């Protein structure tokens, strides 16, 4: 080991001497390699940033990886079973979506059917027998939202991003005036239309007067409002939660190892409700989307890198040709071939590493500049850090290029006959 480290050190020291003696050549090698390593760093940085942004979006929309999700048709008996099962649990949250119209009483909402604000889905209501009814009455200052009643804090499964105000507080005693948190799309509607704070919910005993406490980004494009299930229950008895004509959603989100999953699924099946159980796995699904893209970009970067390697190789071979005497002399004074090869390899390796450092520094600076200039206008650029994966990729690219570009010159150098010193 000592012997190895001694050799390794000598190679590095002598290699460094060689680099210092040929600064211009080293610079030329670096220039030829720079674009290649830069391409690798940039592609890796882009891939990492895109991957993280995509993952964050997917987590927002679908939930954290590993979350178990049980969806089922919103039948009354299923609702009862679910509410009973999640009661008092912190590792399971039920969400029940119902239609809610907030605004002037007696008018049709501006986005009938809960369409995104500014779009119209038409307000026709179709019944299971195929009969459709065009809505009647005047359209007015009202907004239809999907009102989602939560039995617990869903953010342990989906990282809603706060936009303004606060999130629902599940630790307090339920309030008589239900507190509502809007998503961004719903908030947009309230911004555009002057809507009174009165809410109609099908099946409710009276119109509600909700209190809006905050706005979140929940990753969905339709207007939604979140409410504590127990606060809604004051006005809307559980028995009236589901309306077969209005559709709705019933979902339970569970921590990966929640013990109630099996019990609940068995119970639902026993009642003739078919639950659809799924595990959130954004990374895997993303992988499929990203794989081809990454393959294409890395192939291109690899090609540019290869050109850079050819540059190093070219300079390296020329240098060895020039240094025949030096290498022959080194062998004459007893430097073993392996050390000689090591010296040449150390030079290209160090060149590769210097280039990697330059490329990493350049792209980190460029990223900083882009974030500084364009940040704010592009949410994807908010808080973007230079991904460490890109640094690692750059260093690996530098090492690979150094080894590839130095290998042949190293063999050449080791093969120079000593007698050269006598014939020169």
């Amino acid at each position: 080991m000592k012997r190895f480290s001694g050799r390794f050190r000598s190679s590095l020291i002598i290699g460094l001497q060689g680099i210092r003696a040929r600064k211009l050549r080293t610079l030329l090698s670096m220039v030829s390699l720079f674009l290649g390593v830069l391409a690798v760093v940039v592609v890796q940085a882009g891939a990492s940033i895109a991957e993280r942004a995509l993952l964050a979006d997917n987590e927002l929309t679908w939930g954290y990886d590993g979350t178990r999700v049980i969806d089922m048709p919103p039948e009354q008996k299923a609702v009862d079973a679910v509410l009973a099962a999640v009661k008092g649990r912190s590792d399971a949250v039920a969400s029940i979506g119902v239609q809610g119209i907030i605004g002037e009483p007696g008018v049709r909402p501006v986005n009938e059917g809960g369409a995104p604000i500014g779009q119209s889905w038409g307000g026709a209501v179709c019944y299971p027998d195929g009969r459709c009814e065009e809505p009647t009455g005047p359209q007015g200052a009202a907004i239809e939202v999907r009102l989602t009643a939560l039995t617990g804090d869903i953010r342990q499964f989906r990282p809603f991003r706060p936009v303004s105000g606060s999130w629902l507080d599940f630790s307090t005693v339920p309030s008589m005036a239900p507190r509502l948190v809007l998503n961004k799309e719903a908030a947009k509607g309230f911004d555009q239309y002057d809507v009174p704070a009165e809410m109609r919910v099908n099946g409710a005993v009276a119109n509600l007067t909700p209190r809006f406490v905050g706005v979140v980004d929940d990753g969905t494009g339709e207007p939604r409002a979140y409410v504590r299930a127990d606060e809604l229950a004051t006005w809307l008895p559980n028995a009236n939660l589901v309306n077969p004509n209005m559709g709705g959603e019933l979902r339970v989100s569970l921590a990966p190892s929640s013990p109630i999953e099996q019990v609940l699924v068995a119970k639902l099946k026993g009642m003739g409700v078919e639950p659809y159980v799924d595990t959130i796995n954004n990374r895997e699904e993303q992988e499929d989307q990203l794989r081809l893209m990454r393959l294409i970009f890395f192939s291109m970067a690899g090609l540019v890198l290869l050109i850079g390697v050819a540059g190093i190789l070219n300079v390296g071979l020329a240098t060895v040709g020039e240094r025949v005497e030096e290498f022959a002399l080194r062998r004459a004074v007893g430097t073993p071939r392996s050390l000689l090869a090591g010296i040449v390899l150390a030079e290209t390796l160090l060149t590769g590493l210097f280039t990697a450092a330059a490329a990493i520094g350049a792209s980190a600076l460029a990223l900083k500049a882009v974030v500084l200039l364009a940040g704010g206008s592009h949410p994807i650029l908010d808080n973007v850090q230079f991904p460490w994966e890109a640094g690692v990729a750059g260093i690996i690219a530098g090492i690979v290029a150094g080894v590839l570009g130095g290998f042949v010159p190293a063999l050449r150098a080791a093969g120079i006959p000593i007698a050269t010193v006598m014939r020169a």
Partner: protein
Amino acid sequence: MIELTGVTKVLKGQSEPRTILDGVDLSVAAGQSVAIVGRSGSGKSTLLSVVGLFDRPDQGRYLLAGQDISRLPERRAAKLRSSHFGFVFQRFFLLKHLTAAQNVAMALVNGQGWLPRRERRARVMQALDQVGIAHLAKNRPAKMSGGEQQRVAIARALVRDPKVLLADEPTGALDTETGTLVIDALLAATSRGCALVLVTHDRDHAARMGRIHDLVNGVLTERVPA
């Protein structure tokens, strides 16, 4: 110290093999000096390259300090070159980018890496001192005269305390006076017990060696003093 018997070196050219060294017998004891003279192309450098373990003989026996080293794997040859031999060539072969001291220190690199810095420096300075140019230690070759450069090269050869010093026309590129200084430095080494083999075209330099051998077409004969 070295003892060659019947050493033959055949060059396998494209057409027919050429015998460059033909049954060379040569023995040099510690502290002895030998001059090899001969016409250009007679094989003097080839002989030195066999003695210096750059190359192996095709036939014959080569003993170094009583040990047979006629057929030596390259790895061990490199070790012996560094531990037992010092070389000086007609061209000085100093590395331009290194100082005189660094050029000398270069010979201290072997398979084991470098000596500790302090010891390295002491030995380098001692070697430079032996050839009388310790004051030039920090100069680069470009700033030195030919004679000074050659003495740096000799210091490089001496720094490992070689048992055998091999010099291939070390004065070929120098004027007579400077050449004499160089030969002085080489002979000084023999007084410390080093064996010296000097290839030279210069009669005066040859005459200062203990013995003179003539190499004619690969055949070595000792010249009987007149």
